[in-house]
């Protein structure tokens, strides 16, 4: 029989005992729904974790330093590397080369220095670092008071909450550290800070308070820069940097234009060959945490030292693989139950339609035709069940997500998407449900096909 005829016949047969068949189809739907719900929860959590990790900047960042930098000395992977003195200079050309690598999103110089900031004429010493515009999406700035830099070279500054507290002289007492960020931000936003810093001059000193460094080709000039406080961040965007973490942040371009003397400059004993800037280290952001290793290897080949936190993501992926597997197994249980439902429904249908099968055989239906009709019925229930199941699973996910977000909002936490139903999951679920129905329909269909027509016709 032709496929359209078969489908038509199957659908009309399903309509004949609509209650039983719809109950079976609902059974399949529930099975598919549980599978879809479980898997989309797993996928959703995985995506959430990846999103969080990507935002944190921990796992998609490679820190690049020159081998001339003494910080790279003594590390295992550097033992066989070229002599620090012969390795390449981490200059603008190298930065641009790294930035144009395939999987690299951006590469920006890591500018950080300890300097003095004056607020209301009181000096405060702290670590200052530069932030690229892309850091705006970093989740460390979630819950920040004020706003991000208006432009990449604005004379603006963002403070970390702890430093803001220090400026206000409100060091929290031990055991009582829940000063709200809004509280410290209020008096500071829009105010001015004066940063005093040492500028690295291009040429020999020309008077003033400039000081020449013996044996080098540059001078150091003391400068001041006025900065407007635009934001106070609650979290610490640089918590991963440990002791070198900064508490004051400047826009990257502004920081570059200041030519601040950096600690590593003192170690740079060989003068730069060109007038291009030379960086002590670069932060390289990779498009996807999975590509960190490839990018690291490529940068190492260029002759630089790299550093990244990678193993954590790998463990995480392993964890999610196991989690997805468990969710899949539990989701499949419901589907297994519903496939027994299909077998039951079809076996009942054979009993009921015995005579009809006899008639069809008497007027010329082959075993294959009869088998195909029952297969088609099973398949149709599978596809319908699959479609409803995906919709149901999606709806369950939405409802749970909605509920969880209400809970999160009550806990004054940011809302999230825990659920992900990608298109491939939709198709896989429907195709899987169809195939499972065919497998379930195999025994009944075969039984129907082997029915003896003489006996079947005698059946009333």
């Amino acid at each position: 029989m032709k496929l359209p005829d078969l489908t038509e016949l199957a659908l009309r047969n399903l309509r004949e005992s609509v209650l039983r068949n719809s109950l079976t189809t609902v059974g399949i739907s529930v099975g598919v729904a549980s599978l879809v719900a479980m898997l989309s929860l797993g996928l959703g959590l995985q995506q959430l974790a990846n999103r969080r990790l990507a935002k944190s900047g921990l796992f998609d960042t490679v820190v690049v330093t020159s081998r001339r930098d003494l910080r790279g000395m003594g590390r295992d992977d550097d033992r066989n590397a070229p002599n620090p003195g012969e390795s390449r200079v981490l200059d603008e050309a190298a930065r641009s080369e790294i930035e144009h690598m395939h999987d690299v999103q951006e590469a920006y110089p890591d500018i950080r220095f300890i300097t003095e900031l004056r607020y209301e004429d009181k000096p405060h010493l702290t670590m200052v670092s530069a932030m690229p515009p892309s850091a705006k999406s970093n989740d460390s700035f979630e819950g920040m008071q004020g706003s991000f830099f208006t432009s990449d070279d604005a004379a603006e500054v963002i403070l970390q909450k702890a430093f803001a507290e220090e400026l206000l002289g409100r060091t929290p007492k031990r055991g009582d550290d829940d000063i709200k960020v809004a509280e410290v931000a209020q008096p500071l936003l829009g105010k001015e800070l004066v940063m005093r810093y040492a500028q690295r001059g291009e040429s020999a000193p020309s008077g003033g308070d400039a000081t020449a460094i013996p044996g080098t080709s540059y001078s150091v000039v003391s400068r001041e820069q006025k900065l407007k406080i635009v934001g106070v961040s609650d979290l610490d965007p640089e918590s991963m940097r440990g002791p070198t973490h900064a508490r004051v942040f400047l826009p990257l371009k502004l920081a570059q234009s200041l030519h601040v003397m950096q600690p590593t400059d003192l170690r740079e004993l060989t003068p730069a060959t060109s007038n291009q800037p030379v960086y002590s280290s670069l932060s390289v952001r990779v498009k996807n945490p999975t590509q960190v290793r490839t990018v690291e290897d490529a940068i190492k080949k260029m002759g630089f030292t790299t550093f990244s936190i990678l193993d954590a993501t790998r463990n995480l992926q392993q964890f999610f693989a196991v989690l997805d597997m468990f969710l899949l197994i539990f989701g499949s249980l419901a589907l297994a139950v519903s496939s027994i439902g299909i077998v039951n429904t079809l076996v009942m249908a054979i009993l009921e339609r015995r005579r009809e099968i006899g008639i069809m055989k008497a007027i010329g239906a082959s075993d294959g035709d009869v088998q195909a009709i029952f297969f088609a019925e099973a398949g149709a229930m599978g596809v319908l069940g699959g479609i409803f199941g995906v919709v149901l699973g999606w709806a369950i996910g939405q409802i749970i997500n909605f509920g969880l977000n209400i809970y999160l909002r009550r806990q004054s936490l940011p809302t999230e998407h825990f659920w992900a139903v990608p298109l491939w999951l939709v198709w896989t679920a429907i195709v899987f449900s169809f195939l499972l129905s065919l497998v379930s329909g195999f025994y009944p269909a075969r039984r129907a096909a082997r029915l003896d027509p003489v006996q079947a016709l005698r059946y009333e």
Partner: protein
Amino acid sequence: MATTEVTATAVAIRSDNVTRHYRMGETQVRALDGVSLQVQTGEFVALLGSSGSGKSSMLNLVAGLDRPTSGSVIVRGRDLAKLSREQLAKYRLQVVGMVFQSFNLIPSMTLSENVELPLRFAEVDRGKRDSMAREALERVGLKARVHHRPGELSGGEQQRAALARALINRPQLLLADEPTGNLDSHTGTEIMDMLKDLNEQMGMTVVMVTHERALAEGYAQRMIFLADGKLVDDRANTPGGRA
């Protein structure tokens, strides 16, 4: 009919020493016990006997619905016992048309769907199928009932629809199992007249199972009597219409 010139091609059905045994629990039932007979092409034959005589078993063998325990049934040169299940289904589809006492229409389908069902198995195109089914129903006078379900029709109408279905694939052999058994005498006559027309005008071979001798005498050219699975009498008859 030329009964004197019996050539091999003119034989429609030949059975040689056919037996059909069933097992019913401990006992063995000999439904057919060594039946040999021949039916010529274009003949109208009645198989007569009381219930349990084996006449329906014989018809089922000729219809290809069942296989003999031993012996052979040869229809138009095909030994049915040697056909595979698949070939037997094709044989039923293309060579044989059947009508039953209880009509055997599928209750969930309309008349036209019932009539075109064999065409679906024969994989005839949908458009062609529709017009063929309509035509066949028109020929048996059911033009107005095309979209009705069997349950909405009288017995006579149902049997006419069943006849339309049996003829849709233009079979060479029409097998009727007590075709008037569930009909009143008036509608029974109507159906029998149709069978007679098919036999006389289209030259179709008709084998009819009945237990009504009067019916056989009225329409059949030959009457074959079965009792206890054995052929007991085989005689020519001059049909004289419904007695």
